[in-house]
């Protein structure tokens, strides 16, 4: 566990960099979170996926793994990996301030 600051507010992260309390997250943290996840350019399409993961977490209490994310958001798997080369489900969950997706697929 580590405490760091995004958008001027302190947040608690687990060992892998995911929010331990999604309530500490706010939208204005997205650019800094994206930069810390290694994304140098954040497009509207990135934001769409991040918003989708956040909404899914809020509705269902868990972030989707890659296949579910692609199926439910309508963003093809290929594009998801172009947007988030280091793993779309994981990276989007980190930026959306929600716990790591647990699925294998």
């Amino acid at each position: 566990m580590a405490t760091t600051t995004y958008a001027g507010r302190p947040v608690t992260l687990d060992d892998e960099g995911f929010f331990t309390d999604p309530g500490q997250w706010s939208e204005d943290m997205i650019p800094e979170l994206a930069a810390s996840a290694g994304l140098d350019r954040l497009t509207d399409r990135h934001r769409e996926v991040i918003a989708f993961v956040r909404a899914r977490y809020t509705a269902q209490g868990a972030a989707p793994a890659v296949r579910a994310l692609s199926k439910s958001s309508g963003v093809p798997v290929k594009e998801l990996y172009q947007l988030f080369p280091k793993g779309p489900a994981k990276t989007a969950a980190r930026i959306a301030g929600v716990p790591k997706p647990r699925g294998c697929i």
Partner: protein
Amino acid sequence: MGGTLDKVSIIVSKGSLEGIYPPLILAGGARAEGIEADLFFTFFGLDAVTRRRIGRIRPATVGNPGLHLPTLVGALPGMPRLLARSLARRMERLDIPPIPEFVEMTADAGAGLYGCQASCDLFGLTMADLVPQVKGIITVGDFYGLAAGGQIIYT
């Protein structure tokens, strides 16, 4: 967690359903973690990427102790297909795709798919017989070149 894994190369050598799902799950899971992944399809594992076989992958219902079925029951005509169907229903509920979609998804996720040269020669297969996601038919030497610097998993 200590250390990081940057690359895995997974050898798929079996053509049964239970021989093909695990390597696909391992490769897709690797990509989801940002780990580079390649799949090398050899011997009957080639069925997973052969156009006329990919839609008909069945579990081994004879000689498979994991099924807890008497051998004679497993040998009844239609058993492999019946069991494949019942597994497919359960898998769909768990968000595990059928093999053709899984192969496509794994390639879309950026995993490299390769056929084994010696096995393709043995079965008389060319690139035209394989699904379009396969990047090439390569020798074992080429495979080791691809795998260099990473871990190799044999399934």
